[in-house]
């Protein structure tokens, strides 16, 4: 038969999706309720019904360069209306995790965030590394007197250690994103488009959280994601101001002085945004648990890291103000460890969605598929 299609199922892929939180995958009976109730899918070749079928059959190559799993924002309207409890929203989340794995290197770091048994390594690696480096600098101890965190880890130390880690995270993410972009172009046979306009439109969408507003059953995710997202933006602005003061203007570190300074304002707004946002994210998951499930290990890992980063940072500030050195320095150390983890695993953890979802939204515009 000349026109026969030979289906080559990749059973390991199926098992991987199931293990990553897509255990309901096989319940799907292809009714396409999900594609109809989805508010963020395009009409042409809509998702997630087709993805459910590909994943059931182990058609891994179909996901190569498929923007749709990333256009999904896990509103879970599909899951709420699914007549079979197949939870397409959760399954697509699990497939996304497989994509992150596929596009990121080195493999060892991918494994650490994916395998529950290796979880301690996520924190032990940065903790040991930081302890060694701080000991080498001679500052790894509880300092007498007023709590001044730069005695523990100097600004230059932080820049020296954290900048490369962040750059590494971003570089890996961008490399993955480029591969993904190339695959999307090839798979969808799209060779030209207005890239600049697409990027601008994408950034506008992201800044306004446009897609989140389209969710029905989990409309509250708009608020939580908005808070965390802009919390990190504010924190980044605070850091940038620090760099400006110290490295560019050669002024005294702005982190130590006063409370009403821009650094402090941005830093605290950021911290509060992150903490409130992440707590909302967690509570939303429990609120919708009956129908949607509480989410996968992969989801909770990122939520936990973000929560610890936010809370430990805020707590360290409070402890510094009340000058409780024996607790303040350890809490600050924990904060540093988790910020390190966040940066290091940026392209491997669920946080990598910033690269791939961004690319997918952009590609959808670039290829002219988005009609709305």
């Amino acid at each position, binding site marked *: 038969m000349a026109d026969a299609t030979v289906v080559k199922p990749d059973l390991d892929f199926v098992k991987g999706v199931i293990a990553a939180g897509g255990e309901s995958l096989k319940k799907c*009976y*292809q*009714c*396409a*309720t999900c*594609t*109809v*109730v989805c508010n963020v*899918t*395009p*009409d*042409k*070749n*809509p998702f997630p*019904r*087709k993805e459910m079928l590909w994943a059931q059959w182990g058609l891994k190559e179909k996901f190569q360069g498929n923007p749709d799993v990333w256009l999904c924002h896990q509103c879970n309207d599909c899951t709420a*209306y699914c*007549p*079979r*409890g197949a939870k397409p929203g959760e399954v697509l989340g699990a497939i996304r995790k497989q994509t992150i794995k596929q596009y990121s290197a080195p493999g060892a770091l991918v494994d650490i965030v994916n395998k529950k048994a290796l979880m301690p390594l996520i924190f032990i690696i940065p903790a040991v590394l930081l302890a060694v480096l701080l000991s080498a600098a001679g500052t790894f101890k509880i300092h007498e007197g007023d709590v001044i965190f730069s005695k523990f880890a100097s600004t230059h130390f932080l820049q020296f250690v954290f900048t490369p880690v962040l750059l590494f995270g971003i570089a890996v993410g961008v490399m993955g994103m480029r591969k993904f972009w190339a695959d999307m172009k090839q798979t969808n046979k799209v060779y030209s488009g207005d890239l600049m306009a697409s990027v601008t439109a994408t950034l506008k969408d992201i800044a306004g959280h446009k897609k989140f507003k389209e969710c029905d059953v989990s409309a509250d995710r708009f608020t939580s994601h908005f808070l965390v997202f802009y919390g990190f933006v504010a924190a980044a602005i605070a850091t940038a101001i620090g760099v400006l003061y110290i490295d560019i203007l050669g002024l005294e570190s702005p982190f130590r002085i006063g409370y009403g300074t821009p650094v402090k304002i941005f830093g605290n707004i950021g911290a509060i945004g992150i903490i409130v946002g992440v707590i909302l994210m967690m509570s939303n998951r429990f609120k919708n648990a009956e129908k949607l499930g509480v989410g996968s290990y992969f989801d909770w890992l990122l939520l936990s890291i973000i929560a610890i980063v936010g809370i430990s940072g805020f707590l360290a500030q409070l402890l510094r103000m009340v000058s409780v050195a024996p607790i303040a320095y350890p809490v600050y150390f924990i904060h540093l460890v988790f910020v390190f983890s966040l940066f290091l695993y940026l392209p491997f953890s669920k946080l990598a969605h910033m690269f791939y979802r961004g690319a997918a939204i952009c590609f959808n515009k670039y290829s002219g598929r988005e009609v709305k």
Partner: protein
Amino acid sequence: MADKKKVLVIGGGFSGLTAAVETAEAGSDVVIVEKTAFLGGRVAQLNKYFPKLCPPNCGLEINFKRIKNNADITIYTLAEVESISGQEGNFNVTVKLHPRFVNDKCTACNACNEVCPVEMPNEFNYGLDKTKAAYINHNQTFPFTYVIDGKHCKGKACAKCVEVCKYDAIDLDMKPETVSLNVAAIVLATGWESYDISKLDNLGGGRIKNVITNMQMERLASQNGPTGGKILRPSDGKEPKNIAFVQCAGSRDENHLPYCSYICCMASLKQATYLREQYPDSKVSIFYIDMRTPGRYEQFYWKVKDDPGVTLTKGKVAKITEDTKTGDVELVVEDVLANNRITEKYDMVVLAAGMVPSTKDSKIPGEISYTHEGFVVPAFLKKGMFAVGSLKSPVDVARSVQDATGVAIKTIQSSRR
């Protein structure tokens, strides 16, 4: 030989009637207890049977005749079983009889109906029209005796019907009664209800006028229905020329009915023929998850599928909205085979609403086991009790009749042990 032992049949639909006449014709005394004022149940509401497309009245009429000719059958209408106790050979049953307000002298002359000032939603037509409080549900009904609706009737304050009745057939003083029965065996035949589409929020939740159920479609197409058999859409009486059928409206959905209702695919295919016959220039679209036409019904599926005016599209309709200006109905569905999400407008949409066992919401008194969907579990029924038809699982008329006939022999054996 032992005395003729009595058998109770709860439910006067086609299953119950079949079990009753088969049992009675084998020499048992049979009591039929029917909740409504008339026999015939859902079948009386149908326009045609599938797959032969013959009118249900033939089958019903024969059964009514068999009942009329059999002195061993007692019928209680407007009757509800209140309690069941005892065991095989000796069940004690109490039955509450609601007043009909009309006695046997009624000749069905319709005079009471003409003067009755009260209008109420016509349940027989699923609310598609109104009826007077003094009424019969259709002109070939049984018993052919009018009834006065106790809830809506204004009572003796009005009594216009009493004045016009030449036969002294109306008695507004009738009171509820309770009768006690001693029976040897019991047949449960309380049938099914159409799934409440107000629960399907994404399909309009029952609020869109031109979105009707498959049972409403039967009434629209019936000679004795609200439009005299002409299919007209409810909002403005327009002839619908572009109609969509939405399969699995509630069925095969764990949020609603976690089972296949078995009959809806055939029902929609059948109803497509009503439309195509009445309006040769009409277009019918059927949207389905899977077309389920078991056994030889497949041939009917082929027949309808070959009609160029009928389109079958794989994909579950999961969003329905109303164009309030025109009354048209817009639906969204993924054409699965084309992998394309489409939005289409129709004059009218028919929801293939699923079957719900009547015992889902109103349980039969006594120790009876139900599945969590409300179906009776026959294996756990007490000795001497039998369930028939759609009470055990969604089923079509033909299989209900076969089942009821089979149950009749079990009942006869049980009642004579």
